[in-house]
């Protein structure tokens, strides 16, 4: 069980880093869905089936759809570019 937790945690943290690091917004939204999915697996391992179901349906499903729809609306729906997203501080 501990190995399952560690592997899931690694996937989750790698996806979280990708959310911060990837320049493409479409990829970042996909990565945040991966974070939610890994999180729901962790909830299931922690014996919280209700929370796991909610995270999978709401976090991985609806939030991803909402974010993707917004990307399309604000014109960031492209695999590579970010128009005014100069992330450099």
């Amino acid at each position, binding site marked *: *069980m*501990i190995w399952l*937790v*560690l592997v899931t*945690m690694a996937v*989750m*943290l790698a996806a*979280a*880093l990708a*959310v*911060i690091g990837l320049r493409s*917004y479409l990829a*970042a*939204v996909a990565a*945040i869905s991966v*974070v*939610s999915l890994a*999180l729901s697996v*962790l*909830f299931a391992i*922690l*014996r*919280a*089936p*209700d*929370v796991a179901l*909610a*995270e999978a349906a*709401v*976090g991985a499903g*609806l*939030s991803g759809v*909402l*974010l993707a729809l*917004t*990307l399309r*609306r*604000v*014109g*960031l729906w492209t695999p590579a570019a*970010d128009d*005014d*997203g*100069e*992330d450099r*501080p």
Partner: protein
Amino acid sequence: MTMDAEMLGKALYAGAVCLVLLGLYGMVVPRNLMRIVLGLVLLESGVNLFLVAAGFRADAAAPILTAPFTAQAAGPLVDPVPQALVLTAIVIGVGVLALGLALVVRVKEAYGTLDTHAVANRMARETGADPAVTAAGARTPGALPVAAGRTAEDAP
């Protein structure tokens, strides 16, 4: 087994801390409103993971009663209160996310950009606000991007 549980706890808490820090970084450093929203979602996930991990008991079952349907037969159960709390938090989180995204869409339509500094500059020009304050908010190196984001979100 206790060794395992101890490692499990450390790993889970470490993961929650990492998610919270990554989410905060995503909210503080980038200047794009969309990035700030993504950081908010990460931060929320970290807090949820911590709350569920805090209610975990190594020797207990999930809080769903099965066949004999008595609390005695079920034995020890995982604490249901943090789970109910996190369920609430997840659903409220999607509401907050939707409101934030609606504001992002509106800012993009009104100003044509999602860059917090550019939005703050244009707001200052259009409203004729105190130029010293807004210029400082837009150009000074130490300016907090979060504060700039707030002003941008207040746009009509």
